[in-house]
């Protein structure tokens, strides 16, 4: 008796498309649901992280600006690069805060209606106040870290804040009895980045 090899195979029903063929209609919504869920989780995670970063930056910039400006009155004594400069002592405190929060910042002074580029001022450690450099070349009107380069991608992650302050400057060459003869109403600009 001849054995038909074909007839020995299990008979598959018509339209059978594999072991999971009947489950495909159920699997597809499940897979789709999983994709949707993980996309939502990923999106939420990214969004919350970004917002936390922004909030953190805002909070840090407020804190640093608050420390730097003090009571909104600052003075610089270009005849003495030491302890007489209130801004320098405020700056030290601000640097400590920034380090503890693991953020970078830079701060300088600009005119109220300044048209100067903040990027340029910060890159070049400039301020819009005269007599800000001591005889030994120390910058008195500058605080923080200078970013290597303000490229367009980097600047998107920057957060800046400004507050008006009054700055009195005792220029180099002033005598000890001289009052602070130069007074400026300026904005202190604080730029914060991670």
């Amino acid at each position, binding site marked *: 008796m001849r054995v038909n090899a074909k007839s020995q195979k299990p008979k598959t029903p018509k339209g059978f498309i594999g072991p999971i063929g*009947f*489950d495909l*209609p*159920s*699997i*597809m*919504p*499940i897979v*789709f*649901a*999983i994709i*949707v*869920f993980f*996309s*939502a*989780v990923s*999106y*939420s*995670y990214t*969004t*919350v992280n970004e*917002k*936390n970063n*922004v*909030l953190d930056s*805002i*909070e840090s910039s*407020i804190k640093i*600006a*608050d420390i730097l*400006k003090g*009571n*909104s*009155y600052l003075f610089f004594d270009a005849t003495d690069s030491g302890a007489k400069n209130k801004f320098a002592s405020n700056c030290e405190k601000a640097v400590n805060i920034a380090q503890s929060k693991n953020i970078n910042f830079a701060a300088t002074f600009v005119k*109220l*209606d300044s048209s100067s580029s903040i990027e340029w001022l910060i890159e070049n450690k400039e301020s819009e106040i*005269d007599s800000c450099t001591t005889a030994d070349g120390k910058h008195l009107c500058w605080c923080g870290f200078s970013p290597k380069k303000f490229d367009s991608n980097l600047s998107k992650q920057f957060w800046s*804040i*400004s*507050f*008006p*302050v*009054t700055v*009195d400057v005792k220029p180099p060459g002033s005598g000890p009895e001289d*009052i602070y*003869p*130069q*007074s*400026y*109403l300026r*904005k202190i600009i604080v730029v914060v980045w991670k």
Partner: protein
Amino acid sequence: MIARGQASFFDALTFLLIVSAISAALVLFSTSYGLQAQKALYNTIDLDYTNSLMNALLHAKYETGEKTSGNYPVKEFVIQAVKRELSFVGSSYTKDKLISLNSHTYGETKLKQTLKELMGPVFYQKGLIFLMTDIDKPNDKFVYCLFHETGDNLEYCSDSGFTEIKDISGHISKKENVFSASSLLAIPINKLNTNKDKTPSNTTTKIATFIIDENFREKRHVKMTLMLWDL
């Protein structure tokens, strides 16, 4: 009779529905996350800015090049406000001429522009009122005010003098002859300018006392108040 696979397909659909709802809730949560905190931080910045501005004005003495030993914060404010480009600054600082700021005599457009710069972008979407009054002579018209609309559209509180303000608010103590924060808050802004219908809310007020020295011929105690509100 349920066909094979049919029940699990509907189960899967239900699963999809539930997961979609959870995902939508997650997205919604992440979108709204931090908005309140951000608003609170912006309010903090507004408060800090107002305080800084007032403190800076309190300490301001004179601009570079003008060597005097006096302390003239109000003069400094006026100097900053008008950028020394207006005729009365640099010539004389009489009481009348300071008051004449209210009379639109001296470059109103420039004044508005400069004040806008002075107040900074944080105030662009804020209303602002700036008032000065003489404590010793409350009936003098020594009030200057303005409020921001948006961007370039600044409105001027015309010639609103102390007396008019007093009449409007009805809350200013005649005995003390000073503005109180509560009385200022009680002034509806639409009374200050009939074209507007804005009421101060979330207002920040700080009052500072100045002494205007001999450049104004006499010493005057001036109370300055700065208010802002959401537009």
